[in-house]
């Protein structure tokens, strides 16, 4: 659907185009698939969720008179006997960016209807996500081992643990859901659900289309995007 040309519609660039699109009939986002529009709006809503989490964290951290633990020490990891600050976090960041890259390429090949490449790249993304979740599990267990709990921690302000587990947990849940869907969609690509006019999904009357990979991609990139903020505000502050 998304590649459909709109008959008799004059595209205009920039803000003029926006006014023109808004004033036109039928669709406001010209040529944007329903599912994709939905994902965008959902992500906007989800942005507000994460913003509220991060704002609460900022407010909580700014108003505590107790020392806030220094993340670069708390999250240091011993590499060959030397504590390297934020090593694991850095690795996680790189893994997530890698998976974001593979996802972007998967979307590209999806549009080229390149079933093989698309499928493998989606699978690679899923693996990246899985590794990320695994590393996060490791990080959590390490901190729990060191005595960090949602309600207390040995390094300083109790809210540190609370916000840490809550925010990374919420993000991790997003990643995990994403991984599950990535596996499902990898299967769907390989099984050819998007070829020959598309197969109907099991929960919808709509026919499959490679645009679904783009929609999934949006979600995945969003998960990466959130991590950018968590990385900056939680680990670097």
């Amino acid at each position, binding site marked *: 659907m*998304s590649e459909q040309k709109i008959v008799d519609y004059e595209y205009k660039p920039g803000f003029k185009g926006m006014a023109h699109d808004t004033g036109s009939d039928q669709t406001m*986002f010209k*040529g944007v698939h329903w599912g994709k529009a939905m994902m965008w709006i959902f992500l906007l809503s989800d942005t*507000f969720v994460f913003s509220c989490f991060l704002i609460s964290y900022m407010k909580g951290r700014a108003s505590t008179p107790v020392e806030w633990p220094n993340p670069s020490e708390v999250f240091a990891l011993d590499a060959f006997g030397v504590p390297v*600050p934020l090593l694991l976090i850095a690795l996680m960041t790189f893994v997530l960016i890698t998976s974001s890259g593979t996802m972007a390429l998967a979307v590209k090949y999806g549009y080229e209807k390149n079933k093989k490449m698309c499928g493998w790249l989606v699978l690679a993304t899923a693996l990246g996500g899985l590794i990320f979740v695994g590393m996060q599990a490791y990080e959590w267990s390490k901190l729990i081992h060191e005595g960090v709990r949602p309600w207390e921690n040995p390094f300083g302000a109790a809210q540190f643990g609370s916000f840490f587990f809550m925010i990374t947990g919420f993000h991790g849940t997003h990643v995990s859901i994403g991984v599950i869907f990535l596996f499902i969609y990898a299967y769907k690509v390989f099984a050819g659900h998007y070829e020959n006019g598309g197969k109907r999904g099991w929960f919808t009357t709509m026919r499959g289309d490679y*645009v679904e990979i783009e929609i999934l991609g949006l979600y995945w990139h969003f998960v990466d995007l959130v991590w950018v903020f968590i990385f*900056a505000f939680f680990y670097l502050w």
Partner: protein
Amino acid sequence: MEETKKKEQQGSTHKIGIYLWIWGLLFVLSFFSYMVDWYQFQGMLRWSLILFFMFLKAGLIMAFFMHLFWERYALVNVLLWPMTAIACFIVLMAAEGQYTLFSRLFYFFVGGGQ
């Protein structure tokens, strides 16, 4: 004209080069923000660097990986304007956090004497 036309074309594929470029940039920027911590920059410098790299990365992901750069302005605006509410919330909560901290320090630690 060519430029805009290209931008308007929905869902068309882009050259692989652009993705690789962005991908690379993301790695580099992440590395830089990691270096901010590594070298333990402090104060304003640290903050401006962190925020700079953060927004750059976020922008790149949104613009290219999420194709926002190629979307029509109607969508872009619908997505970005609500952020002003969040911005307002952030600013006010930062002020509120400061105020709470002040109140706690003053009445529970420092006292009327200082």
